[in-house]
């Protein structure tokens, strides 16, 4: 398991608020899970089908932003919750948790998906990209959002940045109309669509110029 570098310490005596909350959450989760048989394999079934039946908690390895990361999840754990709560990849946000708002957008094997509506166990062996791995220099999508005021409260921004990057990587010559349709799976409740669209257009332009 590759450990992520610790964050700069925040408040709470050297612990950031997030580290503190996560620490107590993990303690609670462990207390619950030790009561269950971890990683149970239905052996009769497996022998018959040679397909593993997973239940309880299972150890999985995910390739996130170029790194192999291992963690324990339940089969029902979503990719979003696994990224955020187990692997400390907190770029994708949990908002609607129903595949409607786009804040959790991530790129799996090159395709943009809602990570809240994807099971983590089904992502083993796939390439998972979140916006933590994106270039942020001039000409990049994150830079274009910064330059074009593409955010207000910022909660939808990681999802929009991811959606824009995924779309422009596949459609570098997209027109404004196509970009609109390409990022229409994301919602901004502040209504900063004008800035988002300007940012997406600027990023497309920068891509063409590059």
């Amino acid at each position, binding site marked *: 398991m590759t450990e992520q570098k610790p964050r700069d310490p925040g408040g709470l005596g050297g612990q950031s608020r997030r580290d503190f909350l996560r620490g107590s959450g993990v303690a609670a989760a462990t207390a619950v899970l030790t009561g269950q048989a971890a990683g149970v394999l*239905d052996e009769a*079934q497996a022998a*018959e*089908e*040679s*397909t*593993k*039946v*997973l*239940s309880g908690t299972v150890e999985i390895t995910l390739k996130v932003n170029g790194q192999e990361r291992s963690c324990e999840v*339940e*089969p*029902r754990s*979503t990719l979003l919750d696994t990224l955020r709560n187990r692997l400390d990849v907190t770029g994708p946000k949990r908002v609607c*948790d*129903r*595949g*409607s708002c*786009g804040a959790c*957008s991530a790129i799996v094997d090159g*395709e*943009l*998906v*809602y990570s809240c*509506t*994807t*099971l983590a*166990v*089904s992502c083993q062996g796939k390439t998972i990209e979140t916006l933590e791995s994106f270039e942020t220099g001039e000409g990049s999508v994150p830079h274009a959002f910064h330059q074009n005021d593409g955010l207000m409260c910022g909660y939808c921004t990681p999802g929009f940045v991811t*959606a824009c990057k*995924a*779309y422009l990587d596949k459609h570098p010559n997209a027109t404004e109309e196509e970009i609109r*349709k*390409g*990022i*229409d*799976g*994301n*919602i901004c409740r502040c209504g900063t669509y004008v800035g988002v669209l300007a940012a997406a257009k600027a990023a497309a332009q920068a891509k063409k110029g590059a």
Partner: protein
Amino acid sequence: MKAFEYAAPTTVDAALKLLGGPNAAALAGGTDLLGRAKDYVTSPDRVVYVKEIKELGGITGDAKSGMTLGAATPLSEIVHHSGIREAYPALWQATSEIGSIQIRNMSTVGGNLLQRPRCWYFRAGFGLLGMKDGQSLVRAGDNRYHAIFQTDGDALFVSPSSLAVALIALDASAKVRGPKGERTVKVEELYRVPRREGESELTVEPGELLTHVMIPAAGKNGAYEARQKQAQDWPLVMSAVNLTMQGDTISKARVVIYGVAPIPWRSEAAERVLVGKKFSPEVAAEAGTAAVEAARPLSMNAYKVPMTRTVVKRALIRAVQGKGYWEEG
């Protein structure tokens, strides 16, 4: 959501064995099943992941001999398929309007066809018929998105798959495999009107798997939908049509409508108007009028009647003329 067992078999045979247990559910894109599981509308004990089974994927065939879609084909693959866009514009138009780019990347042909109704009473745990204390919550409550046909019955939800409407217009068949073997049915036979609570609106039995959809060569076809939002929404009303022409004359017509009944609604009334006539926008309008003659809307959805009339007319115009008078460029 409730905890479940999980398996990811690599063959249909293995998947069928795994689905044979009690309360097992097939998972493809997850855009419907996981939402239902989170809301405890459906709580499977075992989930069998079928999206990556190779024999369930891919688009084969051509416009002349017909095409076959694997049930686990992502909808985005249909949108990017130039052959489908040319031969089956009804299917292409319907698919490209579904959900959003994320939804189309995730969800599959089979998953879209077998998704459960979006009726808010069903999704809130009141069952498909939405009954409480012997009273229909739908009839007494907010039914703006519900059915306008067969409303004297108890099933007032609308069938949720716009893909099904296009495929039925194209006279497609579906291959279903189960423990007893394989059967081929017309896509419309995948659906039925439930007569009592607890009866499914789908004819695919637990333990069975939809594997392929076969579309024969098509006539002039197209689709049109009316919707509230440009993206991330289901159509309010949508229609897909398929016309076999002999010269200028329509020799066969299939008109199917979404958003108006608990099954994809085949409008034989509209078809009767069309057959034997030369196509014109006036004939299309006449067919639209015929399509809604039997409509009996609920308290809040009378707006769907004129909407359906126009949607059928426009789908016909689009099928024959390629582009409608209301479209730019």
